[in-house]
């Protein structure tokens, strides 16, 4: 068992204080950097796509997992990012400039949505974000002169700083670059007072207010940051899809993002990444299922959304902390072996809110 002695306050704001964590993260980054050496192009492209979804997941995680605001409309920001970027670069705007403009634009739309949603809670927020998604999807379809409508829009080739990135590995490294930046930025956010005000709003708006947190402004900021990151994922996604059409960014896609963060584990960056891995493995398992199940069930059209919904429900009921929670338990088990007892994770007595003496 490793006991961590902290020697200065720096230790608490430093990432990866434990050696074990450093080694693990180092290994993962090394493996990702070396991926083009040991993965075939098909799988490398899939891995790149996984990284893009990890970015989108972190975006939604900041809003839902850390600020407690549900959004069933986040696919809209993927769409806004993808379309805005494709339109900009097809008008000759360089990639680097377009990334910045698109992210900023997405953030602005996010803040506008956040502003109108900042006084809504739970169910109403879910409906409002869903309505926003439908609005964006319709707009992308109807605004034919700009978006090419339902016929679709071709995404121009990927050229970064005048360099065409044609090979799969080149695009993969671009995705990896942005994932690392986003993970870093998100981790940064939650060691500052801005990030803590997000957590405060999630857990108790009442006391957040009484401690000086401007709750409405926090929600607007959170929507903004979240939309910016998801918009960035949209930029990268465009280059994986090559061809955009409005229905790609539909409710099912939103549900997929939600599934990612719920199953991965709400309230952790690692959870979003676990969720992305799961989402990438899901199509494989579904196609496997289709073969195994009797054709009457396997060929049903709604199988995929049904499974998404089912998995979300199962996780909420049986493992509310998601895969991340499982991982923490496993790690705890190994670190404290052989001292870990089952009761280590039994929840402590929780107190009724009204429990008090007269």
């Amino acid at each position, binding site marked *: 068992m490793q006991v961590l002695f902290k020697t200065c*306050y*720096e230790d*608490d*704001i430093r990432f990866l204080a434990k050696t074990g964590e450093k080694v693990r993260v180092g290994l993962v980054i090394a493996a990702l950097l070396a991926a083009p050496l040991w993965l075939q192009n098909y799988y490398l492209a899939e891995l790149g796509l996984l990284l893009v979804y990890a970015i989108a997941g972190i975006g939604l995680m900041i809003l839902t997992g850390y600020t407690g605001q549900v959004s069933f409309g986040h696919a809209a920001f993927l769409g806004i990012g993808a379309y805005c970027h494709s339109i900009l670069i097809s008008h000759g705007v360089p990639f680097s400039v377009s990334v910045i403009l698109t992210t900023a634009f997405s953030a602005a739309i996010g803040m506008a949505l956040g502003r109108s949603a900042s006084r809504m809670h739970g169910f109403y927020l879910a409906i409002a974000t869903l309505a926003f998604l439908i609005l964006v999807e319709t707009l992308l379809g109807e605004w034919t002169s700009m978006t090419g409508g339902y016929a679709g829009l071709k995404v121009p080739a990927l050229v970064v700083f005048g360099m065409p990135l044609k090979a799969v590995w080149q695009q993969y490294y671009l995705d990896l670059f942005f994932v690392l930046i986003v993970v870093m*930025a*998100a981790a*940064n*956010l939650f*060691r*500052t*007072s*801005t*990030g*803590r*005000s997000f*957590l*405060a709003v*999630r*857990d*108790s708006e*009442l*006391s*957040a*207010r*009484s*401690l*000086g*947190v*401007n*709750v409405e402004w926090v929600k607007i*900021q959170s929507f*903004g*940051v979240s939309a910016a990151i998801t918009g960035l994922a949209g930029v990268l996604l465009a280059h994986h899809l090559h061809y955009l059409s409005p229905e790609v960014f539909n409710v099912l896609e939103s549900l997929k993002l939600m599934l990612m963060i719920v199953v991965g584990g709400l*309230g952790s960056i690692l959870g979003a990444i676990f969720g992305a891995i799961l989402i990438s493995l899901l199509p494989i398992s579904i196609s496997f299922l289709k073969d195994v199940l009797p054709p009457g069930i396997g060929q049903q059209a709604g199988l995929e959304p049904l499974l998404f919904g089912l998995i979300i429900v199962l996780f909420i009921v049986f493992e509310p902390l998601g895969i991340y929670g499982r991982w923490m338990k496993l790690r705890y088990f190994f670190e404290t072996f052989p001292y870990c007892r089952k009761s280590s994770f039994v*929840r*402590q*007595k*929780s*107190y009724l*809110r*009204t*429990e*008090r*003496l*007269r």
Partner: protein
Amino acid sequence: MSAAAMLSVRNLSIMFGGVHAVEDVSFDVNPGEVFAIIGPNGAGKSTIFNLISRLYEPCSGTIHYGDHDLLELPAHKIVRTGIARTFQNIELFEQATVLQNLLVGRHRHMSANPLTALAFLPSVRKSELEHRRKVEDVIDLLDIAQYRDERIADLPYGARKNVELARALCAEPTLLLLDEPASGLSSEESDDVGFWLEDIKHDLGVTLVMVEHDMNLVGSIADRVMAINDGRLIAIGTPDEIRDNQEVQQAYLGVSA
């Protein structure tokens, strides 16, 4: 008296669906004193706190704190005037650690900018460390070092009470509103709270307003007591005066006056 008063409440009233929860209540709190509010359940004590912290909008009346007209400020600006509070039902950030909770207490003193936060600029790092030091002082004062990295959800009840008090202190208030600081605590824990409150008053120079049912605690630390019943003020006086007051006794015994 009113000229020197720190907090001055005048003719405060609020109704909930036709019921006067607080009706025409006026009182002053002087700098440096411990002012207790007592009254039977449902008397309107917590409602007065919620009015001062601007969580409720009064029907009429005024609340002044120093030079500030509190009714002109939104809830999140109240702490900037120097008023911090705790809640009767403990409102902590359940899924965050004790340290994170206390650091949110520092929010009023920190600048929060999402862009510099995402980049974690050196200035942000510097300010984080600085505020961390202040938080550690409070952790030492209330002796909660062993809980520092625990999640609130894993803490026992007594510890939560302490953490909530600590979080309010992190805001460096000049006036502290405590809603039943000793409720649900064992008698030893409640004695500890009494000592801490004395320390907070003497060493930090914080003025205290507290709602409390425990008359021993009230008697030992309060300078003045206000008794209310059914939203109306019954009497203000020293703890002994209030204890001997006929109307107060009747209110507690449920006999209609």
